[in-house]
């Protein structure tokens, strides 16, 4: 699965934000930010988004999604 997360003011908060978002889908087995892109180039300050690819386990049948 792929999710987008706003870049946070610290790397620690970014980690927490990603884990929180992924937890809504299941238990993460593996994730990585694969790219950073500007969400809106015209906005001030420019908002950056992290694109995260992840593999999560869905609890109901232990299947890997």
């Amino acid at each position, binding site marked *: 699965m*792929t999710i987008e997360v706003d*870049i*946070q*003011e*610290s*790397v*620690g908060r*970014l*980690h927490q934000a*990603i884990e929180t978002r992924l937890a809504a889908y299941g*238990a*993460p*087995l*593996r*994730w*990585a*930010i*694969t*790219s*950073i892109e500007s969400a809106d180039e015209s906005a001030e300050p420019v908002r*950056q988004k*992290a*694109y*995260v*690819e992840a*593999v999560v*386990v869905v609890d109901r*049948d*232990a*299947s*890997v*999604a």
Partner: protein
Amino acid sequence: MKHRPYTAILLVPTGVGAAIGGYAGDALPVARAIARVVDRLITHPNVLNGAQLYWAIDNAFYVEGYGLDQLAAGNWGIRPVHQNRIGLVFDQAIEPELRLRHLQAADATRATLGLNLTDYVVTDEPLGVELRTAASGATWGTICHPDSLLRAVDRLITHTQAEAIAIVARFPDDDGSEALQDYRQGRGVDPLAGAEAVISHLVVKTFQIPCAHAPALLPLPLDPNLSPRSAAEEIGYTFLPCVLVGLSRAPQFVTNRAIASDGTIWADGVDAVIVPASACGGSAVVSLASSTQVIAVAENTTRMNVTPDQVGIDAVWVESYLEAIGVLVAHQAGISVAALRPHLASLQQLADSNHGKHLQDIGCRC
């Protein structure tokens, strides 16, 4: 005299096409070199596994990727061991002859290397491994019957007291895809690695036990243009020996700090992490970045596009692993890397900026 052992983590993410370490254990020379200049090196199967080839490094710890992420996050510790009793799981989908090849390889590690293996278990269903490639170019995969895998592992732990788990799953044969050709010639992404990682991650997450995976495949036709970086996977019938060697001394996971023994290593005992400069978005490096010196290696290119500065990591950039080794030596000697360069800027008074306002906000009057 050292006040504490200097501990480094070497990361080369799996299945992202790393120029060094993206093939058949081809980051092993890097691990061997780094291990000579640190007290403890923590790294993962993708770095140390060279199919039939391996190198037992006395001060290196073989930690599966999910466990490494938990270590980095401060959730788990690792406890060094002298030897693990290894349980072996075979996917039911493996043909009898191919399974026998693997069993003979396992027996060879007992007789020739002295490893300690338990009796093996065959899964009660074919695992059904499927390979996938994500939008970024990274590889991953799924298994159709994860429950069957977990039952097999549970049997080994319960009935043979296995302390580490080696899994051999039948992976789909490739009849000559472009991705395979590229990989064999040392320029593509490992099409199997991402799925292998998912399998071992699931077991480590569920049982908190060391685990690694070897794919079972039929031999490929001879390729005269085979890259040296991929060649280790084409010199035998199985990829299992390196996995068994790694697991035989893989540290055990400790999930409760309150009852951990003195020798347990936690994230706060890690001094440096070495990672490809374009792959700084993984969970482990993001976890460690605020407390550990990150060394970003530019030369080890990957399919990822996440540099330290993009995610707010204050890293030391180096061009090569040779340079990274120099940074590690300087760091543990307490020498600023800047002092080793020809131009050293003079100290400047800290800009006033918002610090005074901050003090006022919290009630200080100077």
